[in-house]
């Protein structure tokens, strides 16, 4: 097809009246010209016209053949198909609406997932020519520091190699607490904004002068997110300052909404890399040994392979100069603001897609059932069209056109539903997540053209596949018999229908079992007693030792705090392990240092002996042990008054929980010293906070609040969240970058919260599944009863009782429902077994009772009851069929 051809066809399509008119004019001219010639030869005008027309033959035929040459027949007939489809929809609007709504719901829930996945792996950052951005990585080598890229390496690489037009170094993921809220900071070299070629919408970006090693500027650039979250989109934000560990940083710019700095989530703030010491005091003075990420814009004519080779060669050379034994492999990974391992994201999302896809599948099964029923109802019409000479392909095409139209409407509906669901879910999560844990930047991911394509393709595929089968069914009929009004037996698609019902019940069972398992686990988790007082206690982190004294004074004088204690490491951090040897027994124990009031604040009962005196501090050789440790060390003795030797162990207590609240908390090396300690008290063993995986210690050592690295655990008056907020207000005045204040109630509730969230997700999905299944079942049975009214009437006239009729109708669905239930429960159990077999599964199973028989039975029972109800109404209607009337109708 040439361009010429295409433009002419397009013209004929877009301006059909004009093309038609030109054709008529052209043919008319021919006849007129012929007539003129004949007149010139001496004929009368009237005679000449007649003669000319006769010579030409049929203008209509010629015009038709010209139109054929135009090649718009396919499209013309498509337009007729659409008109036909619209007419069919108008004739049965309720059926069409059912199809659209059902598919829209299914697509909507899947689109929710796709939108999230899209932001993770497809949505590249709004950076000009983002495809040229690559991160330089050294594969981790056996030697821990060998693979580290540092700022000096970056600067040397930038100076020596030319594979990148330019590159920047970055340290992402620094978390500050500013006025009690998390602020995510990414440090970048001063050329960052030049490399990514992004200009802030307000103010200016960082420039190399800001990042000078000496005489740099204390300035930051806000991302749109940071501007929104921390400054409420204040238009006069430029020039305001943020206090970072005591030093003011001036805001000089705000970037546009779409720019995330080539990260998936994007930070709140970009600051010069030379300010690293200010942002992470621990790294002050050793800035050149801190690992950085290097990201560059590949030169226009450099392939990734040659770039990789050049960098590796440079690296090998460099290593030979300085250190031996460097790994000389260099990896270049695309850096586009998506997750670096898209396959892993897909793997995580796959089971979710299956769960959400089940809804779509059930919906489609409903649609197919409906269309099957409709196809039977339309047999007569289709029979007439077949006998008038329409080809089977043509009719199938018309039915398909109809379903594509419905699919497009469903895609639009699915979009609406996915947006509502996402907004609702984020709102719901932000509302229900414990407020102190919930300082997360959860935003509704935006939909883009990829989501639109996904929806349309999904809708067309779904309705296409599920509409084609009924369409083929409907056209596989004998025109003569249908014309006579006989509904052909072969076209009654009973087997397909039963399979569809079975599949629906199967999916509902699977989802509802999940929901029930989560619900039961959530209830169990809410009842779990950690053995610590959680109702009115809070944890207060002290981040900076400079402000410690002031913070302690403020806490001590605060009216809302009734009691406080010191604890180290922080209550949610992994504990230090030690080796305890009493002579009579030895054991590995987890240690923590606490002040004397700790047991009182957290309500841990002291069984024997006493707690620490205020005068007993870090250097005092005393300890308190739990009952189980005492039993292990002194199988026969009381424990109190005995001596035990502690040796620091290299390890830390590995958190075994699913959620690690503080995974990167540095291990506290000075906590346990090798020495003899005397046991002054024995306390009861408590389970500790289960979900965090941090068990309570076995050995407690003395400390005080004024000792570095200790945190505060305090008991407050009144509603803990209000008390927390009040404390936060007062304490951030002393140190704007102080750590978080968390209520123990929230920490303890985290587990329940996650289980509840899982429950709600699965119960919404399961509910939808059941609803769709039931409506489908109801629809199918009602339709069957209607179809078989005559037969039922006949049976009753021949002596069938209403009860046998009811049983007949119910019997229609017994087998598919039972098969679906069994398959669903079997698959759920198989999945649970598979999960249990994995290492993560063992952890999960402590919290989620995946094989809970009550959950299985309850959900299966619910499905049976609901299906019975759905079947009962049509069955009852069948039993009321009046044999005389139906027989007379024939």
């Amino acid at each position, binding site marked *: 097809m*040439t*361009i*010429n*051809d295409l433009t*002419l*066809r397009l013209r004929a399509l877009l301006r059909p009246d004009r093309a038609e008119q*030109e054709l008529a*004019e*052209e*043919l008319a*001219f*021919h006849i*007129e*010209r*012929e007539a*003129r*010639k004949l007149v010139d030869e001496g004929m009368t005008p009237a005679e000449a016209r007649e003669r000319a027309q006769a*010579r*030409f*033959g*049929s203008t209509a*035929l*010629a*015009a038709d*053949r*010209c139109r*054929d*040459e*135009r*090649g718009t027949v396919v499209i013309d007939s498509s337009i007729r198909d659409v008109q036909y489809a619209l007419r069919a929809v108008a004739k049965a609007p309720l059926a069409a609406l059912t199809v659209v709504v059902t598919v829209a719901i299914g697509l909507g829930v899947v689109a929710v997932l796709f939108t999230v996945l899209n932001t993770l792996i497809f949505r590249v950052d709004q950076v000009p020519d983002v495809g040229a951005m690559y991160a330089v990585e050294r594969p981790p080598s056996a030697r821990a520091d060998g693979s580290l890229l540092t700022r000096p390496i970056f600067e040397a690489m930038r100076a020596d190699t030319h594979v990148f037009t330019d590159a920047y170094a970055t340290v992402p993921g620094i978390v500050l607490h500013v006025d009690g809220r998390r602020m995510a900071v990414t440090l970048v070299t001063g050329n960052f904004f030049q490399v990514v070629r992004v200009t802030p919408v307000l103010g200016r970006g960082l420039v190399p002068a800001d990042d000078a090693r000496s005489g740099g500027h204390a300035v930051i650039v806000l991302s749109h997110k940071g501007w929104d979250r921390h400054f409420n989109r204040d238009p006069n934000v430029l020039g305001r300052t943020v206090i970072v560990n005591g030093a003011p940083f001036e805001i000089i710019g705000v970037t546009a909404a779409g720019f995330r700095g080539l990260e998936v989530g994007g930070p709140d703030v970009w600051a010069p890399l030379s300010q690293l010491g200010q942002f992470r005091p621990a790294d002050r003075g050793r800035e050149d040994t801190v690992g950085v990420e290097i990201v560059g814009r590949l030169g226009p004519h450099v392939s990734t392979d040659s770039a990789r080779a050049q960098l590796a060669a440079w690296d090998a050379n460099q290593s030979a100069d300085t250190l031996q034994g460097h790994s000389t492999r260099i990896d270049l990974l695309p850096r586009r603001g998506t997750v670096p391992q898209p396959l892993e994201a897909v793997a995580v999302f796959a089971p979710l897609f299956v769960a959400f896809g089940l809804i779509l599948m059930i919906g489609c099964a409903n649609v197919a059932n409906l269309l099957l029923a409709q196809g039977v109802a339309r047999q007569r019409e289709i029979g007439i069209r077949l006998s008038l000479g329409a080809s089977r392909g043509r009719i199938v095409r018309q039915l398909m056109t109809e379903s594509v139209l419905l699919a497009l409407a469903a895609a639009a509906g699915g979009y609406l539903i996915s947006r509502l669901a996402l907004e609702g879910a984020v709102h719901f999560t932000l509302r229900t997540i414990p407020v102190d844990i919930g300082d997360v930047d959860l935003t509704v991911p935006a939909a883009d053209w990829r989501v639109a394509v996904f929806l349309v393709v999904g809708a067309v595929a779904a309705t296409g596949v599920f509409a084609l089968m009924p369409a083929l069914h409907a056209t596989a009929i004998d025109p003569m018999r249908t014309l006579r009004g006989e509904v052909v037996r072969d076209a009654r698609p009973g087997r397909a229908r039963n399979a569809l019902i079975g599949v629906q019940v199967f999916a509902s069972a699977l989802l509802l079992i999940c929901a029930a398992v989560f619900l039961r686990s959530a209830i169990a988790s809410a009842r779990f007693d950690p053995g610590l007082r959680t109702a009115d206690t809070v944890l207060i982190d002290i981040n900076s030792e400079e402000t410690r004294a002031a913070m302690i004074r403020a806490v001590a004088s605060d009216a809302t705090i009734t009691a406080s204690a010191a604890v180290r490491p922080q209550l949610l951090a992994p504990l230090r392990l030690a080796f305890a040897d009493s002579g009579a027994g030895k054991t590995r124990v987890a240690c923590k240092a606490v002040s004397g009031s700790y047991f009182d604040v957290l309500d841990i009962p002291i069984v024997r002996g006493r707690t620490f005196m205020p005068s007993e501090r870090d250097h005092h050789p005393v300890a308190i042990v739990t009952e189980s440790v005492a039993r292990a060390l002194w199988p026969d003795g009381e424990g109190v008054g005995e001596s035990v030797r502690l040796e620091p162990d290299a390890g830390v207590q590995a958190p075994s929980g699913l959620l690690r609240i503080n995974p990167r908390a540095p291990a506290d090396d000075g906590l346990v010293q090798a020495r003899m300690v005397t046991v002054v008290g024995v306390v009861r063993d408590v389970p500790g906070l289960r979900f965090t995986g941090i068990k309570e210690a076995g050995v407690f050592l003395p400390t005080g609040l004024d000792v570095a690295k200790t945190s505060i655990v305090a008991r407050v008056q009144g509603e803990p969240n209000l008390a927390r907020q009040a404390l936060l207000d007062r304490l951030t005045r002393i140190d704007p970058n102080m750590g978080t204040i968390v209520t123990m109630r929230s920490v303890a509730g985290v587990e329940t919260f996650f289980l509840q969230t899982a429950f709600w997700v699965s119960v919404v999905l399961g509910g939808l599944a059941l609803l769709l299944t039931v409506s489908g079942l109801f629809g199918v049975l009602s339709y069957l009863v209607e179809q078989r009214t005559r037969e039922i009437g006949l049976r009753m006239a021949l002596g069938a009782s209403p009860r046998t009729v009811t049983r007949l109708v119910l019997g229609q669905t017994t087998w598919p429902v039972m098969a679906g239930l069994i398959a669903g429960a079997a698959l759920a159990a198989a999945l649970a077994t598979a999960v249990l077999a994995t290492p993560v599964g063992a952890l999960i199973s402590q919290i989620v009772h995946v094989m809970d028989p009550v959950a299985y039975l309850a959900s299966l029972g619910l499905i049976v009851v609901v299906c019975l109800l759905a079947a009962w109404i049509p069955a009852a209607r069948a039993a009321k069929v009046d044999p005389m009337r139906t027989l007379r109708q024939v």
Partner: protein
Amino acid sequence: MARIPDLLPGTLDLLILRTLQKDVLHGWAVSERIQQVSQDVLQINQGSLYPALHRLEHQGWIGAEWKVSELGRRAKYYRLTAAGRRQLAVEAREWERMAQAIGRVMKLA
């Protein structure tokens, strides 16, 4: 009026292209010119002429424009395009070969 009902397939296209080689003509003039040049041996079936013209236009071998005709009203004039010129050369060569082949067969017989 003697008619040649069965032109060899594709011959009509060739005749139209050849006729438009030098001049820009409307449909009637094309058929008239063919008739004249062939001394009335070839009379184009006018019902086939216009589909052929439209087909050639779609293929891009001839272009069309509306101009005022000798009758004073507007008519659709066709002219050969560059692609049409190449196509004409190809088809003319083919025709030559075919005519020679037929000629040889006829002489032999």
